[in-house]
């Protein structure tokens, strides 16, 4: 029971990172109807930017956070301009947008790899442990130990999710985003600058991926340019579980995947945790592609 509670606390902070990451996927999918497979590459860049700020420039965690959000948001906007917009203007098939985002993903990851090798003589690097609050918070009654960093990660992640939810449902730009997501052409007729909404959406998604990547690095310390591969399919599973394009669904999906991973690690060992997740992805795609909460696609179109 003790280990179970301990594992559960770990699952919650991991789930927060997955949820942040999956939110970006879901945001882009809900507004554009395309899947941005380069999202995981932006995640990897979030960790890299944090590493550069903290290791090479001597910045603190808040500075790294802001740098990761801004840089990754800009990278994400560049993706929209170079990889998605030209195809959308040509009315290309959704598959072409998928292919161009795969191309962008490989490009970005390889670029990150080159930066790692230039800066650290290696494709692996570690965050400076001294700058990460590692104090253990011990809850005696439940016999749980959590590092302060994991708690901070969870709190910031939850705060960002609330802000995003308010932004989408309450603000003017959120209203415009929902209008574009509902019908791009009608939104344009109503005087909404659709191109600007797309750019803003990509900035938000990229910023979230950047934060998630930085947090992943801060929690696991050791990072490399391929950490995006670890979460790419996990994030996809999260949004498939939650229903593609549903923002709340992505959050629930992220926590759910982390829980499933943790349970299968406890029961069967860490070798199988991803196998279980992908099996779940498979089954959901086949039997309930609209996810736990979504509506069937036919009623959306």
């Amino acid at each position, binding site marked *: 029971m003790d280990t179970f509670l301990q594992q559960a606390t770990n699952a919650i902070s991991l789930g927060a990172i997955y949820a942040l990451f999956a939110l970006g996927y879901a945001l882009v999918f809900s507004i554009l109807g*395309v*899947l941005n497979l380069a999202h995981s590459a932006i995640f990897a860049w979030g960790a890299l930017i944090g590493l550069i700020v903290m290791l090479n420039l001597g910045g603190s965690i808040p500075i790294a956070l802001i740098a990761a959000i801004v840089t990754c948001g800009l990278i994400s906007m560049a993706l929209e301009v*170079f*990889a998605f917009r*030209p*195809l959308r203007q*040509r009315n*290309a*098939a*959704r*598959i*072409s947008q*998928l*292919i*161009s985002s*795969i*191309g*962008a*993903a*490989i*490009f*970005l*990851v*390889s*670029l990150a*790899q*080159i930066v790692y*090798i230039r800066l650290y003589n290696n494709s692996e690097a570690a965050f400076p442990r001294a700058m990460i609050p590692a104090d253990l918070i011990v809850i005696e009654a439940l016999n749980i130990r959590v590092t302060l960093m994991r708690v901070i990660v969870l709190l910031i992640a939850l705060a960002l999710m609330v802000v995003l939810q308010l932004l989408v449902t309450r603000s003017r730009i959120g209203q415009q985003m929902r209008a574009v997501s509902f019908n791009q052409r009608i939104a344009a007729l109503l005087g909404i600058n659709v191109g600007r909404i797309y750019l803003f959406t990509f900035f938000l998604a990229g910023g979230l991926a950047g934060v998630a990547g930085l947090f992943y690095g801060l929690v696991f310390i050791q990072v490399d340019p391929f950490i995006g*591969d670890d979460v*790419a*399919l996990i994030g*996809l*599973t999260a949004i*498939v579980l939650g229903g593609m394009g549903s923002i709340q669904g992505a959050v629930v999906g992220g926590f759910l995947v982390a829980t499933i991973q943790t349970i299968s690690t406890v029961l069967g060992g860490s*070798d*199988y945790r*991803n*196998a279980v997740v*992908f*099996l779940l*992805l*498979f089954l959901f*795609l*086949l039997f309930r*592609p609209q996810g736990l909460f979504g509506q069937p696609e036919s009623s959306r179109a």
Partner: protein
Amino acid sequence: MLEWLSSLGITEVVLQLMLISAIMGLSIYFTLYTGMFSLANAAFMAIGAYVGALLSTQLDQPLGVCLIAGALIAGLIAIPIGWPVLRLRDIYLAIATIGFGEIVRIFLINFDNVIAEILRNQTGERVRYELLGGARGIRTIPTYTETWHLILFVLILTFLITRLHRSRFGRAMAAIRQDEKAAANLGINVVYVKNVVFVIGAVIAGAGGVFFAHLIRNITPSMFGFDRAVDILAYAVLGGVTSWIGPIVGGLTLTGIPEILRFSQDYRGVFIGLVLLLIIVYFPGGLINPTAWRAFWQRVRRTHA
């Protein structure tokens, strides 16, 4: 001919890898030509490679037997995978096939451990079990693959493809790509055609895997991950899938060019990524696409006139 190639930096091994890429390009050509976006071919390549390598290392079978078994087993596995998965369309199909690839990779890595654990539970003592070699893969596979095998295989494939395109089945494939609903209304059994095409692609990918294993001697599960799936996709995208020449040219050039330009391995990903991005944005039909080139030259002439 060979001397001229090696002066460019293309040794015989590189040429053989280029031809294997061409085979893999043809394997994804079938599904793309039918309008299905499947990224499962790297997994079928892995299945072929492992089956072939097991037969030659454990049972001393010749290449012919390995080839037939590898291709057949890849095809057999494709049947129960394709039947449920092919109901999905574009991005959903892509995600499902990526997931399938990951499951195959995890299976290959953990197979030995699982068997060892089962044996231990039965016998009660610690047993070492080594068949697939876990993450280190299978080593010292005999090098059976020769250049003429590959050239012959590509020639046979292209002959069969040209025959196929003129057949009823081939036209059904094109019809499904253009409009699935209209094709179904014309009496084409869409589900049947899609499944057969998926299996054909798997069989070719399996054969490519067998050739690959008996060329590079040492295979590991990580060779057949998402990166490989994307490489295979890139062959078809670069060449285009308007005709079978496209994936062959795409496979040959994408594997050959890094050798000719003598890139360091670090820049390979940057190169492949940019190629995918630029081709899909500016040359959506791929490079081997006569109509696109004609339009391109007309535009050039008009701007200079």
